[in-house]
């Protein structure tokens, strides 16, 4: 029944998670952030990428949760993992050791070079809003082979100028990764509820390369704080398939029941 429903209607949030899941490959070793990244990574595992290795920073390696974790260290992650390592080992041997192909992050604010802020809104010493902080993100951003970011678009989140950089995308000018000698690629995809951005090969500015069905360029601009640029070829994101939607809705429903919130 869900599959029938799925074929006819989906939300922009579902489109975002499905598009994000499709970016992952079966052979990836993925460091998973909590929330939307976790939904996308597990959708990939349950559809086209059954062999993907999912790693959460609590130390769980090759975990296969049946429900999406609320926290980064729910028991479900440990019980379904191949192995669970101590947290210092996770950050030293596995992340810093260069064994992760993709880091999957979300954030509160982002700029056109895909730098992220999850620390403060306003002045650091006297913040308007104190956000949770960086957690693992500063080192995930530079130690993983590449970074995928998933974030819903709005003027408040897609900022012309980021006052505080919690984790580096391509830097404030687009050249910082090279200047600092960082060998990894940084953000190669930014998947939103409206479209997909990829870095311009020359400037590293995030440019739109695929627009979700029914979304206009005007709507993308209205929800972005900088003048949006488009790639040389802009495609239309394929709609979610009935199977993708059914699997996503099933795991989200199992999660709702399990968390009892």
């Amino acid at each position: 029944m869900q599959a029938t429903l799925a074929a006819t209607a989906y939300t922009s949030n579902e489109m975002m998670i499905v598009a994000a899941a499709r970016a992952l490959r079966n052979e990836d070793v993925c460091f998973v952030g909590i929330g939307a990244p976790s939904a996308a990574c597990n959708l990939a595992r349950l559809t086209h990428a059954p062999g993907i290795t999912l790693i959460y920073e609590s130390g769980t390696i090759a975990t296969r949760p049946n429900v999406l974790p609320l926290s980064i260290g729910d028991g479900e992650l440990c019980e379904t993992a191949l192995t669970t390592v101590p947290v210092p080992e996770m950050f030293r041997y596995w992340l810093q050791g260069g064994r992760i192909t993709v880091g999957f992050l979300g954030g509160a604010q982002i700029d056109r070079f895909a730098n992220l802020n999850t620390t403060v809104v306003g002045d650091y010493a006297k913040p308007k809003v104190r956000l949770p902080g960086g957690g693992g993100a500063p080192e995930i951003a530079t130690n993983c082979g590449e970074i995928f970011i998933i974030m819903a678009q709005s003027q408040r989140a897609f900022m012309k100028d980021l006052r505080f950089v919690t984790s580096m995308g391509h830097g404030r000018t687009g050249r910082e990764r090279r200047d600092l000698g960082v060998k990894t690629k940084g953000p190669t995809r930014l998947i939103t509820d409206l479209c997909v951005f990829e870095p311009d090969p020359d400037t590293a500015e995030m440019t739109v390369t695929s627009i979700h069905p029914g979304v206009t360029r005007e709507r993308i601009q209205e929800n972005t704080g900088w003048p949006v640029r488009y790639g040389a070829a802009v495609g239309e994101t394929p709609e979610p398939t009935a199977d993708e939607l059914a699997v996503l809705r099933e795991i989200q429903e199992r999660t709702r029941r399990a968390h009892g919130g």
Partner: protein
Amino acid sequence: MARFVSLAAAVEECIRDGDTVSFEGFTHLIPFAAGHETIRQGRKRLTLVRMTPDLIYDQMIGMGCAEKLVFSWGGNPGVGSLHRLRDAVENGWPGPLALEEHSHAAMANAYEAGAANLPFAILRGYLGVDLPKVNPNIRSVTCPFTGEVLAAVPALRPDVGVIHAQRADREGNVLLEGITGVQKEAVLASKRSIVTVEEVVDDLGVASPNAVVLPGWTITCIAAVPGGAHPSYAHGHYPRDNAAYIAWDKIARERDTFLAWMKEHVLERGPDAFAVHARRAA
């Protein structure tokens, strides 16, 4: 050698006003009962150290126990903000709170350095980010072999390390299972330590020679507090009470509802209140 005492006696002996205290547990095995006892005993001016200050530090900060927080991620996992932490940082209530903010990788390395009796930790980190501009304890060191510039942070050496574990044997040896986070490092890096446990047993029942076991002579005090990690969880005993974490958002949002909740559930209760959450998974 670890001594078995009541939780009240352990906190009384080990934690003093003005101490640097680390209550650790990475989502799992968070020592909530020990935090509540610290609040009941009215400890003040603590420097609280923890990678992920979740509800336990929200409660201790809101009750005025802390003057400084050393941390790397301060939120209610999967739910949102810690409202008491935010109120302290944004509005200075119930008092000002100094922050020393790091990344997870730096904190984990700093605990390891503390356990290893080193003065500082090195990592390939903090590249292209703004935290070093607001935290003077994030510095750099040049590798004497390759010339690579690496980030350096001071080792963490708390006065007291506080953790919760599944069980202790009667000699005071402690077993941790599941997600073990930085608890072993926190205990070994600290001058004194308190371990609360689900149960005290004749035989730890270690399933593998590589299990995480802290020998009794590395621990100061052990207190049996069944259910003492609730609303976090104890692998093999009880699951994470995710509904309680979700409910905390509303409780902690306003000062009045927070204080009323703390009075009813912490100030007017004791460690025995945790026992209703204790059980052994089949």
